C-alpha cells in the first residue's frame, strides 16, 4: 500500500514501454557504471538529508553549551559532508557521462551497421530523414533516459517510499492518507501516458519528415534553382515545420498539465495534513512536535513527487524513441549468407541466368520473367531494351542488390545465393547509370570497397576509363569531390564510376549505360581501352547507343520483361524489326529526309556498320 506511488510511476508495467526493456543488451556492458550513477545519486540524497541534522547538533550541542572547542569537530564533520555531497554529485555525473555516452555510441554504431546490411529494397521504402532522426535524436533521448531519467525515477521513487514508510511510522492515519492521496496521481499519470505517447511519436516522426525535406531540398537545389521554385519548396518545408510546431505545442500542453497536477497534489495534501494533523493534535493523538516533524518530512517528499511528472514524460519519450529504433532493428536483412555457405572457388566466371523472374515488392506485375541468358568467360553481352524495360533491374540482380523472385543466377554453375555475399560482390563489379559519388577524396571514391588497392591498380583503372582528369584536380587524387560528385562534369563523373568498376579486374563486370555522358572522341578512347579489359572478363553492358553495343560480342534484346532475341548486332539489325526500331539511328521509316543535308546526318546503317565492326574485331 505504501508503495502505491512507486508502482504507479514505474512505467515498465505498461506494454508500451516494453521496448525500453529491449535496450538492456546495450546497457549491460555499462551496468557497473550505471549502478555507480545510482549510488552517487542515492548517496547525495542521503547526505543532503544529513546536513540539516548536523546543523541541529550544532545548535543543540556547542551553541547551547557555549562550547567553542566542541564546534570544531562538528564543523569538520559538516565540512566533510559538504565535500562528500559534491563528490558524490561529481561521481554521479562522471559515471553517467561515461556510461550513457558509450551506450549511445554503441547503439548508434549498431543501427548504422544494421542499416548498411539491409537490402536495397528496404532503403527504397524508407526516407533517409526518418532513418537519420532515429539514429540521432531518438538515440539521444535514450541516452538521456539511461543517464538521467531512469536513475532519478528510481531515486525519487525510493525516496518517496522511504519517506512514506517513515511517515506511516510517525503517525499512521496521516501516513495512509498520504499514500491514498497518490491514487489520483496514478490515474492521471496513466491517462497522460497514452496521450503523451501518441504526440511524442508524432513529433518524432515529423522531425524525420523535416530532415527528409531538408535533404531533398539540398540535393535538388539545382532543379529548384533551375526552375525558380524556391517558394514552392519553402512552402512545403514550412507546412511541415508548422505542423511540427503544432504537434510540439500539443506536447507542451500535456506537459504543462501534468506538471501542474504533480505540483498541485503535494500542496493539497499538505493542506489536508495540516488540518488533519491539527485535529489529531487537538484530539491528543499526536503532539505538536510530531506534527511539525511530520510536515517537515513530508516537504522533503514534495520535490521527488513533483519531478516524477517530468521524469515520466522523459521516460515515455525514450519509450517511443526505442519503439522507433526497434522498427529499424527488427527489419531483417534478407540478402544474407545462407547458413553454412563457404567460399567457393570461382573460375573464369561463366554467368548464367536461368528462367529468372523479378518483381519489385509493391508492384503487381513482375518486371522480368523467364529471362535466360548465358555469358561465357571473356564474353561481353550488350543488353538492349526500351526505356523502362528492366535493364537496370536485371543488372541489380547479379550482385544481389535484389534477390530474384523466380529462377536462379549462377556463376560457374554455383547459384549466387550459395556464395557468401561478400565473395559474390568481390567478383562482380558494377558501374551504375548514375555515378553515385560521395564527398570524399577522389581516390576513396575510386577504391570504394577496396581500400587496399595499389597505386598501380588505380592507375590502370584510371587509364581504362580515360579518367586522367583526376590528376588535374587541385590536389590530384586527394581532392575532395563535391557531394554526389557535383564538382565534376557529367562525363567526368561517369568515367570515375567506370574506373571504380574496372579497378582490380573483377570476374564479372556489369556496366549500366557506361558511356552515355561521353563525347564521341572520349567514347571511342574509352571503348578501345575498355575492350582490352572486356576480353578478360565476363561482362554485361547495358546499351542505348549502337556505339556502346559495339563493345559486345553478342546482344540480348529485352522486350516485355524477357529476353526475346540474342545474336550479333548486325544479324539482329537485319532480322529483328523491334531491335531495329530501338537501336537503329534510322528513324522509323522516315526516309523522306534522307539525302538532304539534315537527313544526311542520319547515316544509313548497312555497309558502314559492317565495316566498323570489321575494324573493331
Amino acid at each position, binding site marked *: 500500500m505504501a508503495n502505491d506511488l512507486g508502482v504507479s510511476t514505474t512505467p515498465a508495467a505498461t506494454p508500451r514501454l516494453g521496448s525500453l526493456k529491449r535496450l538492456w543488451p546495450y546497457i549491460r556492458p555499462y551496468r557497473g557504471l550505471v549502478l555507480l550513477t545510482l549510488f552517487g545519486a542515492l548517496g547525495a540524497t542521503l547526505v543532503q538529508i544529513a546536513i540539516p541534522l548536523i546543523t541541529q547538533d*550544532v545548535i543543540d550541542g556547542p551553541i547551547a553549551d557555549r562550547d567553542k572547542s566542541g564546534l570544531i569537530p562538528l564543523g569538520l564533520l*559538516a565540512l566533510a559532508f*559538504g565535500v562528500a555531497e559534491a563528490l558524490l554529485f561529481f561521481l554521479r555525473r562522471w559515471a553517467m*557521462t561515461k556510461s550513457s555516452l558509450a551506450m*549511445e555510441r554503441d547503439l*548508434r*554504431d549498431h543501427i548504422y551497421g544494421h542499416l*548498411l546490411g539491409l537490402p*536495397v529494397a528496404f*532503403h527504397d521504402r524508407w526516407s533517409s530523414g526518418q532513418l537519420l*532522426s532515429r539514429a*540521432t535524436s531518438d538515440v539521444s533521448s535514450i541516452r538521456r533516459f539511461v543517464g538521467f531519467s531512469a536513475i532519478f525515477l528510481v531515486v525519487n521513487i525510493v525516496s518517496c517510499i522511504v519517506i512514506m514508510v517513515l511517515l506511516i511510522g510517525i503517525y499512521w492515519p496521516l501516513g495512509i492518507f498520504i499514500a491514498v492521496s497518490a491514487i489520483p496521481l496514478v490515474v492521471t499519470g496513466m491517462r497522460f501516458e497514452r496521450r503523451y505517447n501518441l504526440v511524442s511519436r508524432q513529433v518524432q516522426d515529423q522531425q524525420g519528415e*523535416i530532415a527528409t525535406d*531538408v535533404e*531533398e*531540398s539540398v*540535393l535538388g537545389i*539545382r*532543379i529548384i534553382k*533551375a526552375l*525558380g521554385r524556391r517558394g514552392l519548396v*519553402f512552402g512545403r518545408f514550412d507546412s511541415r515545420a*508548422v505542423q511540427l510546431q503544432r504537434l510540439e505545442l500539443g506536447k*507542451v500542453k500535456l506537459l504543462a498539465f501534468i506538471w*501542474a497536477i504533480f*505540483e498541485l497534489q503535494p*500542496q493539497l495534501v499538505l*493542506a489536508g495534513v495540516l*488540518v488533519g494533523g*491539527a*485535529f489529531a493534535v*487537538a484530539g491528543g493523538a499526536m503532539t*505538536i512536535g510530531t*506534527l*511539525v516533524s511530520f510536515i517537515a518530512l513530508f516537504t522533503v517528499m514534495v520535490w521527488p513527487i513533483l519531478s516524477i511528472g517530468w521524469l515520466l514524460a522523459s521516460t515515455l519519450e525514450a519509450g517511443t524513441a526505442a519503439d522507433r529504433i526497434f522498427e529499424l532493428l527488427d527489419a531483417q536483412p534478407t540478402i544474407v549468407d545462407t547458413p553454412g555457405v563457404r567460399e567457393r572457388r570461382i573460375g573464369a566466371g561463366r554467368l548464367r541466368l536461368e528462367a529468372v523472374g523479378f518483381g519489385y515488392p509493391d508492384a503487381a506485375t513482375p518486371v522480368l520473367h523467364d529471362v535466360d541468358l548465358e555469358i561465357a568467360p571473356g564474353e561481353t553481352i550488350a543488353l538492349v531494351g526500351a*526505356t*523502362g524495360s528492366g535493364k537496370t533491374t536485371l543488372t541489380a540482380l547479379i550482385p544481389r542488390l535484389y534477390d530474384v523472385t523466380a529462377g536462379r543466377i549462377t556463376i560457374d554453375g554455383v547459384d549466387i545465393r550459395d556464395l557468401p555475399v*561478400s565473395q559474390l*560482390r*568481390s567478383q562482380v*563489379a558494377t558501374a*551504375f547509370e*548514375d555515378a*553515385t*559519388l560521395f564527398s*570524399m*577524396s577522389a581516390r576513396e571514391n575510386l577504391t570504394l*570497397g*577496396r581500400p587496399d588497392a595499389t597505386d598501380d591498380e588505380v592507375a590502370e583503372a584510371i587509364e581504362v576509363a580515360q579518367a586522367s582528369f583526376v590528376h588535374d584536380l*587541385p590536389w590530384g587524387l586527394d581532392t575532395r569531390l563535391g*557531394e554526389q560528385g*557535383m564538382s565534376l*562534369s557529367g562525363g567526368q563523373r561517369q*568515367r570515375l564510376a567506370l574506373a571504380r568498376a574496372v579497378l582490380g579486374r573483377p570476374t564479372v563486370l556489369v556496366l549500366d549505360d557506361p558511356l552515355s555522358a561521353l563525347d564521341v572522341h572520349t*567514347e571511342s578512347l574509352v571503348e578501345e581501352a575498355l575492350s582490352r579489359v572486356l576480353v578478360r572478363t565476363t561482362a554485361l553492358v547495358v546499351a*542505348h*547507343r549502337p556505339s556502346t553495343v559495339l563493345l559486345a560480342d553478342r546482344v540480348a534484346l529485352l522486350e516485355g520483361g524477357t529476353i526475346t532475341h540474342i545474336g550479333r548486332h548486325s544479324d539482329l539489325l537485319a532480322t529483328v524489326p523491334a531491335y531495329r526500331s*530501338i537501336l537503329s539511328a534510322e528513324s522509323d521509316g522516315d526516309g523522306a529526309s534522307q539525302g538532304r543535308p539534315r537527313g544526311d546526318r542520319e547515316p544509313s546503317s548497312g555497309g558502314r556498320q559492317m565495316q*566498323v*565492326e570489321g575494324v573493331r574485331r
Partner: protein
Amino acid sequence: MTTQGDWRGIATEDVDDVSSQAGIFLRARSRRLLGELISPHRRQVRWLLLVIIVQNLAWLAGPWLVGLGIDNALPALMDDASVGPLIWIGSAMLVAAGLDAILRYAFLRRTGQIGQEMLLTLRRKVFSHVQRLPLAFHEHYTSGRVISRLTSDVDALNELLDEGLDGLLTALFSIMTIGIVLIVLDPPLGLVTMLAFPLLILLGRWFQTNSARAYRRTRETVAMVIVQFVESLGGIRAVQAFRREPRDTEIFRTLNEDNRKAQDRAFWLMSIFVPGVQLIGNLVTVGVLMYGAIRVMDGDMKLGVLAAFLLYVRRFFDPMSDVAMFYNSYQSAVAALEKLSGVLEEESSVPPARNPQPMRQAHGDVRFEGVEFGYAERTDASRERTLAGVNSDPIVLPDLDLHIPPGQTVALVGATGAGKSTLARLAGRFYDPRAGIVSLDGVDLRRLSDEDLRRAVVMVTQESFLFSGSVADNIGFGRPEASRSEIEHAARVIGADEFIQKLPEGYDTDVRKRGGRLSAGQRQLVSFARAFLADPAVLILDEATSSLDIPSERLVQRALRTILADRTAIIIAHRLSTVEIADRVLVMESGRLIEDGSPYDLLAGSGRFADLHTAWRDSLA
C-alpha cells in the same frame, strides 16, 4: 594506399580550431541571433516574468501558511475548540495551491509557445537562407551538414528553451529574494554568504571558456556523423555492391567515437562545474554555520536568527545548481547558434539584384561578353597555392563572347569537361562570372530579379533529380499553378504519358526519394516534361536525352521542333542527332568556342565539327 584518416580528401574550406579572437566574434554573433529571435516576444516575456513571480509567491505561501497554522490555528483549535482559523488557513492553502498550479500551467504553455515560435522562425530563416545560397556553397557544404544545422542544432536550442527558461527564472527569482532576506536578516553573515559570488564567478569563467570550445566541437562532430550517415545510405547501392560496408562502418565508428569524445569533454566540464557550484555552496554554508555559531555564543546574534539563516542559506544555494544547469544548456545552445548564424551570415556569391530591372516578357536574347569564369573562389590562399604549384584555381572559361538572338536554337557540342554545362549554368545565373557580363535582352543577369530570371530562363540539368511525391507533382514543379490536364498534356507532348499511365497509380504514383521508383530514362522524361511545362523564353537542355532509348529520343526531338520554334534554346548533347534541330552549332574546347556556324556550313568545312560528326556517324553503325 589510404590510411584511416585521409579518406575525406582535401578541400579549401577546411578550417582549423577557431582562435580565441574568432571565438569572441562567434559568440557575439550567436548572441545577436538569440536576441533577434527573442525580441518579437519581449513584451510577453515581461508578462511571464510577472506570472512567475506571482506563482513563486503562491508556492512559497504554502510553508508560510503551515507555520501560521501551527502557531495560530492549532492553539485556537486546542484552546477554545474554534475550527475557524484552521478552516481559514486550510482554504488559504487550497487557494494558494490552486493559484500556483494554474499559473504554472499558464506559464509553461506560454513559454512553450514562445519557444516553439522561436524555433519555427529559426527553421524558416535557416531553410530559406540555405535555399537562397548559390550552388558554390552547396557544393562544399553538403546536405548532411545542412540537415544537421536544421535538426540537431535547432534541437540544442529547443533543449535550452525546454528545460532552461522556466527553471532559470524561478531560480533567479528565489536567489534574488532570498539573497535580500539574508542581508536583511543579518548583514555580517549575509556578507559571508556573498563571499560565494567571486568563487562562483571564477568557476563560471573557467567553465565558459572551456565549454564554448567543447560544445563547438560537439556541433562539428555530430555534423560529421550525420554527413556520413546520410551520404552512405543515400548511395547504398554502391556501398553494398562494392562491399564498402566494413570501411563505412569503420569510418562511422571513428566519427561516432569523435562525437562521443567531444560530448564526453563537454559533460566532463559540466560534471566539474555543477558539483563545483554545489561545493562552494556547501563550504559557504559550513562557514556560515561556524561563524554564526561563534556570533551566537558571543551574544551578537540570536539563535533563532541563525536557525532561520541556515534554512535560507540552503534555499539560496539550491537553485544555484539550476542556474548552473541552465548555463550549461545555454553554452550548448550558443554553440549551435554559432553554427546557425554562420550559415545565416554566409553571403551569397550570387547576390540578388538591389534594384531589379523588371522584365515581364523576355524575348530571349542571350549575350556573353568577355566572360571569364572558374569555380574556385579566388582568395589569397588560393593564389598562394597556385604559386606553390597547386593548380587550385583552374579557369574553366577564359574569355567567352557569344550572342544568341531571340528564337535561335543553338547546339553546343564538345569534349567532356570542356565547359558546356558551365556555360549553361552561367546563362541561368547559377554562378556569376569573374569578369564580363552575361545578359538577357540586354540586361545584365545580375540586375534581374530572381523571379523574372527564373521565369525567363529554365534549364534541364544533366542530373535529372526528382523529388519524392507523385509524378504529377514532379511535373507540376515546373509550374505549380498548372492544372492536371496541362500536366498530362506536357507529359504527352514529351512522350512520357505512355509509361506514366502504366504505373500502378498513374500520375499519382509516388516516385520515392530521388525518383528511385522510375528508371533513368523515365526520370529524364519527367524532368523534361517539367521544364516544358515551365514554358520559358530561354530553354537550356543539358544532356537532356542521354539516357533515353533512340525511339524516345526521336519522339522528344520531334516535340522539340515545335516547342523550340519560338524560343531561344541551348542544347548540349554528345549525340549529334540533336543537331538536326539546331540553327547554329557551337563547338567548345577547353572553355573556348572554337567553331560557330550553321550546321550546313560547318559540315561542309573540315573543322572540328565536321570531324566530330563523321566520328559520330561512324559510331552509329
